[in-house]
């Protein structure tokens, strides 16, 4: 707990102020994001929910420097990133941000362990160190025995776990996940759910965009979006047996 307190003094990992994103122009102008203020604290897991087209994926792309805002600010720790050059943004994405996508985005020609070590190699680590780190991460996601398999030889859930291991490769400040279980059946969703829960428990900072209520329920904080804005925000209690016994139909 004391480490959490000291981290809290450091401030936010991610912060946006007055974030705006518009697409098109004239009559076709769409306000995808409308003055969004977000603070994500170190070690916090934030889930963002909302109907298709509410702006939640756009927000995630702006947080990760994959797109640029039309207005407002994005801060990663104490650095403002919305005005960085393309080159600086690309470097920042590789080093400081772990991305997890709905469609996994693994390189099909490379084995699981080669996919996981790729970010470390690009960041300039030695092949030996990168491989050791990749093997550790595969163990962490429970796929040690699948290290030499190609993505095509893995189930959807296993592929997403490889993608999550890859996202952890450079010890990112934050992991941004866009519908991580969108392509998975319920058994595979449960595997990813357990993994996200363990990452949260280990103190990783997570921002997850999801339709899946079970994934959202792993978060510390839940934000609902509509029409490009936050409309409802809840700190999930993860409380004791009290509310649970009521839910289960036992006497309180």
């Amino acid at each position, binding site marked *: 707990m004391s480490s959490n307190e000291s981290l809290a003094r450091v401030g936010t990992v991610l912060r946006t102020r007055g974030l705006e994103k518009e697409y098109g122009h004239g009559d076709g102008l769409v306000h995808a994001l409308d003055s969004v203020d977000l603070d994500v604290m170190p070690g916090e897991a934030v889930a963002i*929910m909302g*109907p298709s087209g509410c702006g939640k994926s756009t927000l995630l792309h702006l947080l990760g420097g994959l797109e640029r805002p039309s207005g407002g600010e994005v801060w990663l720790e104490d650095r403002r990133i919305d005005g960085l050059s393309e080159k600086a943004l690309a470097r920042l994405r590789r080093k400081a941000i772990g991305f997890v996508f709905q469609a996994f985005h693994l390189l099909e020609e490379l084995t699981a362990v080669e996919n996981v070590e790729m970010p470390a190699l690009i960041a300039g680590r030695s092949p030996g160190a990168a491989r050791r780190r990749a093997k550790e991460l595969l163990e962490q996601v429970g796929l040690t025995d699948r290290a030499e398999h190609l993505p095509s030889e893995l189930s959807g859930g296993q592929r997403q776990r490889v993608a999550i291991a890859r996202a952890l490769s450079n010890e990112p400040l934050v992991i941004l996940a866009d519908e991580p279980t969108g392509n998975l059946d319920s058994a595979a969703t449960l595997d990813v*759910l*357990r993994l996200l*829960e363990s990452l949260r428990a280990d103190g990783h900072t997570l921002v997850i965009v999801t339709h899946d*209520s*079970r994934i*959202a*329920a*792993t*978060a510390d904080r*839940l934000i*609902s979006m*509509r029409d490009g804005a936050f*409309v*409802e925000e*809840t700190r*999930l*209690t*993860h*409380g*004791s*047996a*009290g*509310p*649970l*016994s009521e*839910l*289960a*139909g*036992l*006497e*309180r």
Partner: protein
Amino acid sequence: MQEPAHVSKAERPPDYQLGVVQEVLLALLAKEAAHGYDVRARLQLALGPLADALNAGQVYVTLNRLERAGLVTSTVVGQADRPDRKVYELTPAGRDRVREWLDDTTWPKPAPAEFHLKLVAAAAAGLADPVRIVDSQRHALLDGLAVAQRAALAEPNDSVAGLLLEGVVLRLQADLRWLEACARFWNERGEHHE
């Protein structure tokens, strides 16, 4: 917004929940007579983390109540190195009650009608945006899901209490899916009227 929930709770027979525990205690005594302590241990195993809500006294109070109602009898058994203990046994009336309970197919009532009517009324009277009411309700259910899910994930795979928790999780998911349908419907309805 919380008002209707309180009303329906107040209308519920006050003994309703405790009633469930009564039947369960009777059923746990159906095979053989047992100490209150053993009965409580079996209940704890079945409920896992949920057993925290059942305090120890409640089991003994309920057993006493069942005895007064003629559904169980008790005998005091002396123990060499500890205080005497009561051993509880089912009466024929108690046995009949257990059989009735096992045959009863009443299902705990999920109550979407009240929430549905709340949305209809809010929209009709222009009191509030139904979509916002759905959002708030969704967050409340997700808070419950978060609690139940974390408890479920903490149980080992073969846990009998884990099965109960999975039931809680799945029912909340079903409610949340219906809320999504509510949000879609009222969102489209709102857009047509604008």
